[in-house]
């Protein structure tokens, strides 16, 4: 495709001069020249030849002069570059043109060698701008898609709170903040039968789109497996066998799967390499669940999983979180840490699940103090409600 150059001049002899001087480029299909006698005609020609790269225009012309044309070009054709032709020494028009966005100027009588160099430069600039515009459009397109992906991703997690309004014995809240448009963290909860609630928190390695895809697979597969009623350890072992085979480039997911019995407060859990959840007792003590055997899911084909058990009393709270909370950094590059996490919870003892969730997020954000969020941030809180509530 030749680069198109529009020559605007009311003296038709310029056409002859150009055609002679750029004979070789025209024949080689490198340049194609289009001509107009004034600004108005130039705009018509541009409409007919939309892909013009450079406009070379005289200043003094009947009907529409070069400076007026320049203003119109800036509005309508921001990508193409304009080179002004002016009388030697007409500095005031040249300054005006440059101030109005002309790319360069040549003076009459035209030095054809200089014109050649100027056109080459202007074409290069126009092509760069075209490319930049294209890149920007591509980027916008990707951003739009990410926006859609982000909405899809958040819609697959339970978002309505309270999720089980008629279950007054449990109070659940959760919050999730991906570091980018989409993330690798997730949480989930669902009743397995009338009394037992399945609870999940997970964190896929990395973040962004690859993590989001693996997150969707892991979350769906875990829920489907859990709903068959398998105990936590068997459930993790089963999804590990499958996801290990599916894992690309070493991707893995750390997760906790727990079953909470709403009748007696018993929690049975298994851990695929995730941060141990915390229990905030009603007296304000904070304890981590006991370590149990297990490895991040999809990291090893030989992983074994065991189960732990903890008894929640009425008024106790179970807090599951991802390392985006404990490893949030502030501007001084300090970590939020498990110590601060425990203290924050202790200070909020007695609060509802939502108060604890919001309070913890506020605490982490306050600590980070504007430092860029480096990882997805997720917290899921389950309160075993007091009889009095």
């Amino acid at each position, binding site marked *: 495709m030749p680069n198109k150059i529009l020559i605007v001049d009311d003296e038709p002899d310029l056409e002859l001069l150009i055609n002679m001087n750029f004979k070789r480029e025209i024949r080689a299909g490198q340049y194609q020249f289009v001509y107009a006698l004034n600004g108005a005609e130039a705009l018509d020609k541009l409409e007919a030849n939309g892909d013009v790269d450079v406009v070379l225009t005289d200043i003094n012309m009947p009907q529409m002069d070069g400076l007026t044309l320049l203003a119109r070009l800036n509005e309508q054709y921001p990508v193409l570059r304009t080179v002004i032709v002016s009388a030697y020494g007409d500095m005031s028009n040249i300054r005006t043109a440059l101030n109005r966005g002309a790319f360069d100027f040549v003076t009459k009588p035209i030095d054809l060698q200089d014109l050649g160099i100027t056109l080459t430069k202007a074409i290069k600039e126009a092509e760069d701008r075209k490319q930049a515009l294209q890149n920007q459009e591509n980027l916008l397109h990707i951003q739009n898609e990410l926006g859609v992906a982000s909405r899809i991703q958040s819609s697959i997690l339970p978002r309505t709170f309270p999720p089980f309004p008629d279950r007054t014995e449990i109070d659940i809240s959760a919050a999730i903040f991906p570091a980018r448009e989409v993330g690798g963290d997730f949480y989930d909860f669902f009743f397995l039968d009338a009394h037992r609630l399945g609870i999940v928190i997970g964190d896929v390695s990395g973040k962004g789109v690859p993590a989001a895809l693996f997150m969707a697979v892991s979350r769906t597969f875990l829920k489907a497996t859990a709903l068959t009623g398998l105990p936590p350890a068997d459930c993790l072992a089963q999804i590990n066998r499958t996801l290990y085979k599916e894992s690309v480039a*070493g991707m893995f997911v*750390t997760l906790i799967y727990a079953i909470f019995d709403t009748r007696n407060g018993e929690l049975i859990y298994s851990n695929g*390499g995730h941060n141990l959840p915390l229990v905030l007792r009603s007296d304000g003590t904070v304890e981590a669940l006991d370590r149990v055997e297990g*490895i991040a899911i999809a*990291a*090893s084909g030989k992983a074994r999983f065991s189960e732990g058990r903890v008894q929640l009393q009425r008024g106790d709270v179970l807090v599951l979180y991802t390392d985006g909370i404990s490893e949030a950094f502030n501007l001084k590059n300090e970590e939020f840490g498990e110590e601060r996490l425990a203290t924050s919870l202790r200070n909020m003892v007695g609060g509802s699940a939502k108060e604890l969730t919001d309070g913890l997020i506020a605490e982490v954000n306050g600590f980070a103090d504007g430092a860029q969020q480096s990882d997805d941030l997720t917290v899921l809180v389950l309160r075993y409600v007091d009889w009095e509530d």
Partner: protein
Amino acid sequence: MELTHEINDDVVHIGIKGKLDSRTAPSFEERLMQIIDQGHKKIMIDFARLDYISSAGFRVLLFGARRLAESSGTIALFGLQPKIRNVFDIAGFSSIFSIFSSREEAEKSLKA
């Protein structure tokens, strides 16, 4: 993050310094895969000056270990700071990777 690597006999020594997170993991991945693609089967990584590792960093280590396992190769890690060692323990990765307390032990295991 800074990376160094040198080859002694048939053992590749990788040194890694700073933070291994989602920002720096791609360059670590590129280097590690290059080394594996060249056919090296014994890799030891010095973690002594690594201050932070995120899951993105673990992913690259796992990827490397899985690729090496295909050609019966191994990765030996040594010099982990206690904080880093703790993260390995939480994720259960201490049982997947061969972790040694010193360079000498790591080297001995690879040469055995």
